[in-house]
């Protein structure tokens, strides 16, 4: 959308016709899509004032291009912006909660079934490589192979992030480990595990950020934190199973699952393609430690 250039209209003529921002709260949050919202600007010159005023009365009849042409010049496009509904402060609490829970559920599903994100991951990686190529940077041949047959960059929806999952999982994991260890040590084990998880996740997130890409600190923390979930399952398994060899096998499977989920999630969040291994390696390291603690507890 082009920039709005303020026209040369005398201030007195303008003052009477500025339309206040729409703040009638008692209406339904979603309004008619044709209602112009950002018209709190200057009106047309005096001679065409009346005809335009009537057109405001009847929203469907507004021809924005024609009305604003005298002000903005012939080549400027004027568009109406769709009113996208009320803000989140106005909605009922239940709606807010259900939206957040849905987001958490979506994340969890992505961890349980990482393949659901792989398309998004591929598109994101292609965007980054295409971007690099357009900027005149030499892309390694290994990466270029997948890209050549693809068209222009795909529009990619960025994943939302939140820290509920990581919080719940790290708490659950440390509680289980604390309960499983001898009575005298349980509080120590709990606090050490909990702080170790968060410290290493923070270090890993900084590392991912330092490696570059379009990912930032909290999305990286969220992606790696949510992928702990399979390991929490492993901790639950070690409550039920006491045999170390069975635990070892189960935890090995669960840790590789977690690493795979984290890889896909990080690819989606925009880690550079040539550095995915470098970003995921420390994550794998801490997952192995967490899985191992489940085995030997």
């Amino acid at each position, binding site marked *: 959308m082009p920039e709005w250039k303020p026209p040369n209209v005398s201030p007195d003529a303008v003052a009477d016709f500025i339309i206040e921002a729409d703040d009638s709260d008692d209406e339904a949050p979603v309004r008619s899509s044709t209602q112009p919202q950002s018209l709190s600007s200057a009106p047309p010159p005096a001679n065409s004032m009346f005809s335009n005023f009537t057109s405001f009365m009847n929203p469907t009849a507004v021809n924005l291009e024609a009305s604003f042409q005298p002000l903005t010049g012939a080549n400027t496009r004027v568009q109406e912006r769709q009113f996208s509904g009320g803000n989140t402060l106005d909605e009922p609490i239940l709606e807010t909660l259900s939206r957040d829970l849905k987001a958490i559920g979506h994340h969890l599903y992505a961890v349980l079934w990482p393949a659901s994100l792989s398309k998004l991951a591929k598109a994101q990686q292609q965007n980054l490589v295409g971007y690099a190529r357009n900027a005149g940077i030499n892309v390694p041949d290994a990466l270029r192979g997948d890209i050549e047959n693809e068209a222009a960059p795909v529009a990619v929806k960025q994943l939302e992030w939140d820290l509920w999952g990581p919080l719940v999982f790290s708490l659950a994991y440390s509680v289980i480990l604390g309960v499983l260890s001898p009575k005298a040590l349980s509080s120590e084990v709990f606090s050490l595990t909990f702080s170790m998880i968060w410290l290493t996740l923070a270090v890993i997130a900084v*590392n991912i950020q330092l490696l570059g890409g379009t990912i930032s600190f909290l999305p990286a923390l969220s992606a790696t934190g949510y992928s702990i979930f399979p390991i929490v399952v492993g901790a639950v398994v070690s409550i039920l199973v006491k045999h170390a060899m069975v635990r070892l096998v189960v935890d090995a499977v669960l840790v590789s699952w977690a690493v795979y989920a984290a890889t896909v999630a990080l690819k989606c969040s925009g880690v550079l393609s040539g550095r995915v291994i470098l970003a995921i390696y420390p994550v794998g*390291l801490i997952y192995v430690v967490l899985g*191992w603690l489940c085995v030997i507890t």
Partner: protein
Amino acid sequence: MSGKYDRIIDADDGGHFFSINYYRQYFDIDSNEFLAKCMHAMIPFTRIFGGNEAVDTTGELYGAIWCTATIIVLLFLSNTGSNMLTNWVKHSDIKYQYDFALLTKSISLLYGYILVVPIVAYSLARWYFKFPQSLTLVQYVSIYGYSNIPWIPASVLGLVGGLLGNHSFLSSLLRWICIGIGGVLSLLNIVLGIYPNVKKNFAELGKEKVALVELAVLSVVHVGFTIAVKISFFGVLN
């Protein structure tokens, strides 16, 4: 130093000392370069016969940080795992309890070693001997970080050692072999990384013999570090 991907991420490379962009220059490495460096550190013999140019040790901290983290994790796994296996072989009823103190101790030992010794070596080179072309501090840390990679096979062998719990002689022999592999190969890495530069600089200063003295001191320090690793992870000295 400008990064390969800087133009994608943000136009201004560098940045302020306290901003995260400043540190991006030390993490400017791709997966394949990293793997190549690790391979060369694992098999240092290839570098003796003139393969040194293949791995140009640029100042980069990813390897130093995460290789050391790998060693810590593996030594911890190896120690706890071999204790568990020993208990299993001996059919003892004593439940093995891991201690977190081992983890924190190993973090301070390994990271301390790859930080303190390079800082001392760099300060000597820079301000005492006044080298014309000293390695940078980051390069010293990087060399020391990668040098520890041979501890990986050593810790895997140590895990196997747990199965020999009933034969205390064989078990301790195997542990000494692990220590030998780790210590000698990592020392070789350090020497191959640092010595060419040190030698060249001392030659320019006209004090070739001091280079050998510095090498000897570094070797003695490394032997001390190896014994500390032995005490922490592979049981008491016996």
